[in-house]
């Protein structure tokens, strides 16, 4: 097996687990948000998103299996909140929605867009297309919730918490050197960004999409910018 197929198999298996967790998170958050904002369209979007994520889990797992990396998923998996315990229920929901949708789903959408600008093996491209159509909505529902909360409640408390969200999002090796046997062209064909491209997309998305979006809705992104500069070795 080539190094690219091995790395891609691991990436798609990881994505399957990520998608499974997202389904659990969206199901839980839909109930919480509906409890304090019954007029919001977001809970319905989240329930549909949970169904999307379960389908994505299967797609990613199938690709991982085809690349020689079968993934074992726990059907009874549970998912705890990632919000700081000091937040009340409404703040905790907003924290999770911003972390999961405004940051992670937005980053995922940028990754998918970048991948789809290149060429992939047919089965891989079909999966990328299918998932990207849904991920647009998953990112939007985060910005939808943040925009509503910025009108209805206080959201500035999130500013100092952005670094924690970012630290929990990235892989340890994102700002390190690529693996010595990395084959960028082969990885792209298998639906995986080479490390340098992944870093470029991550940074650009934060600086030009996520941080301006947070600022627009009253969340000061400055602590996030400082964290990013430090993590990326720019300060």
């Amino acid at each position: 097996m080539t190094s690219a197929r091995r790395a891609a198999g691991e990436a798609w298996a990881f994505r399957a687990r990520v998608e499974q967790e997202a389904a659990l998170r969206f199901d839980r958050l839909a109930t919480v948000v509906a409890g304090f904002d019954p007029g919001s369209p977001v809970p319905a979007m989240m329930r549909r998103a949970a169904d999307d994520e379960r389908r994505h889990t299967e797609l990613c797992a199938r690709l991982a299996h085809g690349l020689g990396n079968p993934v074992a998923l726990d059907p009874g998996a549970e998912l705890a909140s990632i919000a700081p315990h000091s937040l009340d229920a409404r703040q905790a929901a907003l924290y999770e929605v911003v972390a999961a949708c405004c940051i992670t789903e937005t980053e995922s959408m940028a990754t998918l867009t970048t991948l789809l600008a290149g060429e992939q093996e047919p089965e891989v491209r079909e999966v990328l297309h299918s998932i990207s159509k849904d991920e647009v909505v998953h990112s939007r529902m985060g910005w939808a919730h943040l925009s509503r909360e910025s009108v209805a409640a206080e959201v500035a408390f999130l500013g100092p918490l952005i670094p924690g969200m970012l630290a929990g999002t990235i892989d340890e090796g994102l700002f390190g050197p690529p693996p010595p046997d990395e084959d960028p062209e082969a990885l792209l064909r298998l639906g995986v960004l080479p490390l340098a491209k992944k870093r470029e997309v991550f940074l650009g998305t934060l600086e030009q999409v996520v941080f301006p979006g947070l600022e627009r809705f009253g969340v000061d992104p400055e602590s996030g910018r400082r964290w990013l500069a430090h993590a990326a070795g720019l300060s």
Partner: protein
Amino acid sequence: MQFKKLFQVLVLGGAMAGAVAATACSQANAQDKAKKPPADAGTKDSSAGGGVKGW
């Protein structure tokens, strides 16, 4: 990568999606706006919060 387009599609598109019934929401929750968050929100607890892994 067209980040400007992503901003428009995701951030601004999301805000528009959330605007459904936003007026009613803002009226119903006007009192909440006056409530200040705890000064130590996110800092007092030992858990500083985490993030969500993605693609």
